């Protein structure tokens, strides 16, 4: 397997502060790779190092096996779509897309055909002479992507380009970007703080925290088997408990909830349970399931995403449970008693 991007032990220091701390990872050719993290986690710095706008302090960065250390941005086979898109307001759509090709001194004919090809691909044929200020948010997005892709880079970097769009359009662009990437086959490296963007679009996602990678995995694995408590808490919704003791296969939480959990060889500090892990429908019949009695506090109606907030009688902890799509619970009301089950495998325990 060939890697289009190899990051080896890369560190970036600003003064004494390590924005990126000895990060290593590889990106396979043709994939959609996301870096997910909160603000200030170092993801933007990492992206700027790949694009060449920041020098690496330590470590090495290879694109298709060639070291990029010391190579300026304009000479790297890597292009970037900026957060604010950075379309040139003084040029029309065509000139924006042609800008990079003209810098490469390609013959006029070739520039014209490649620009036309690219515009067709992103569905903007006929918009050549439009000013970029006259376009809608989605169209501007596509011009920015076309402007970079027309150069056929090895990697396209995207710095949260969907951030400025309204929700509806953002949902739409997520799908569009994923389809576009599959069609074109260029490696996308996408930076975002929005986990849904990362999970929906990516083949692989790296979760970043305080300058380090917590986990690199497929979206499914990231969700099902978070390797660290940070990932468990950051990706998707979870009910979080502080664990105070683990004896004879029983976990005791801070407020006194006791749950059975076998097969762990360490004393955990944190326990995470996804809302959908709770079984409401006849949990007593299932093997390896611990039963908990609760009382319904509120029902948070949100269509298919409806949740119920319940109080665990034993410990008074409040937890969120996904509302089952099942006619049996149609008449559930606030104040009702509810017996729920939790499968042992759905208890995610972490040392810290």
């Amino acid at each position, binding site marked *: 397997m060939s890697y289009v991007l190899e990051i080896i032990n890369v560190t970036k220091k600003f003064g004494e502060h390590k924005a990126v701390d000895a990060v290593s990872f590889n990106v396979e050719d043709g994939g959609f790779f996301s870096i997910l993290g909160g603000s200030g986690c170092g993801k933007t710095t990492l992206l700027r190092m790949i*694009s*060449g*706008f920041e020098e690496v302090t330590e470590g090495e960065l290879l694109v298709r096996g060639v070291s990029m250390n010391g190579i*300026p*941005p*304009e*000479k790297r086979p890597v*292009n*970037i779509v*900026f*957060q*604010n898109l*950075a379309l*040139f*307001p*003084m040029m029309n759509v065509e000139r924006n897309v042609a*800008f*990079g090709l003209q*810098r*490469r001194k390609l013959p006029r004919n070739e520039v014209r055909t490649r620009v036309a090809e690219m515009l067709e691909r992103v569905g903007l044929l006929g918009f050549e002479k439009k000013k970029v200020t006259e376009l809608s948010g989605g169209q501007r997005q596509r011009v920015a992507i076309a*402007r*970079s892709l027309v*150069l056929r880079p090895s990697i396209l970097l995207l710095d949260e380009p969907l951030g400025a769009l309204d929700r509806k359009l953002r949902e739409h662009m997520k799908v569009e970007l994923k389809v576009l990437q599959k069609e074109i086959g260029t490696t996308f490296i996408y930076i975002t703080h929005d986990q849904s963007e990362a999970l929906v679009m990516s083949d692989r996602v790296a979760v970043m925290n305080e300058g380090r990678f917590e986990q690199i995995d497929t979206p499914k694995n990231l969700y099902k088997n978070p390797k660290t408590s940070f990932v468990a808490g950051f990706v998707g919704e979870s009910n979080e408990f502080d664990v105070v003791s683990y004896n004879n296969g029983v976990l005791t939480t801070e407020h006194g909830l006791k749950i059975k959990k076998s097969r762990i060889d360490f004393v955990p500090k944190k326990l995470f349970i996804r809302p959908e892990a709770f079984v409401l429908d006849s949990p007593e019949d299932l093997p390896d399931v611990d039963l908990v009695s609760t009382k319904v506090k509120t029902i948070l109606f949100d269509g298919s995403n409806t949740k119920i907030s319940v109080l665990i009688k034993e410990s008074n902890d409040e937890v969120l449970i996904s509302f089952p799509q099942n006619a049996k619970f149609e008449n559930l009301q606030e104040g009702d008693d509810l017996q729920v089950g939790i499968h042992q495998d759905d208890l995610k325990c972490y040392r810290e």
Partner: protein
Amino acid sequence: MSKRGTFYLLIVPVILWLAVLIVIPHMDMMYRSFRLETDDGAMVYSLSNYLVFFQDQIYWLTFVKTAVYSIGVTVLAFIVTFPVAFYLTKVVKVSYSSFMTLLLLIPIWIGELVTVYGWMILLRDNGVINTFLMNIGLIDSPIEMLFTNFSMTIGLLYMSMLFMIIPMMSALDSMDDSLIEAASDLGASKWTIFRQIVIPYTTPGITSGGIIVFMLVIGDYVAPNILGGKSSLWFTEQIYNKFLESFNWNEGAAFGFLLLVLSSTIVWVALKLSGQKLEKVGS
């Protein structure tokens, strides 16, 4: 007071200002430029004031020279100050930039007379520059710099160029750095980035600044008169002579009107070429 009353309270002083001090005086000037005092002391309408201008070579040569030099100094001011405006807004650390910008304002407020006088001392035969050059042995006898077109150009440039930096800086300030980064990412060289991205983006600031500089230069009297020599006559000097030395006010009015037409035409062409409006120049 009613809304209507307040409106009149606002508009009356403004109309008085513009009518009494701008419109009437300039109409007066135009009127006088077509008047001639005949030998017997009567005033008649005549084009002779303008004929003087076209018949006497020195007048229209000075006129053309003033126009060409003013445009030249404006271009020079742009070339000299654009890198400075860019440096102060985009390159230097933000903490230094405000102090360095303040330094630019000082010569403006000190005023033209004092700074022109400073250049006079610097450029004289026994001035600072010649003395310095002779002391380090670079030259044996003083270079004649004062009272030449060179010294006049230096003076005009110095007193006008700083007025160009401020509007260019405010245009550059509003430009997002990511535009430059994007151009660089797409493979543009520094030269291309300046030519295709930065300068087009700054055009409104360049136009405003250029017009201010041009107006200051073409209407200036001090720098050409003090630093320029006999060979570097400026059109304002001829207007001045008509008024305050030969007391031929009618001819002076005609010359003033010609200068106004000249400067307005060039400003108008500059606005058309850059697609700007005069309303924007003010901001």
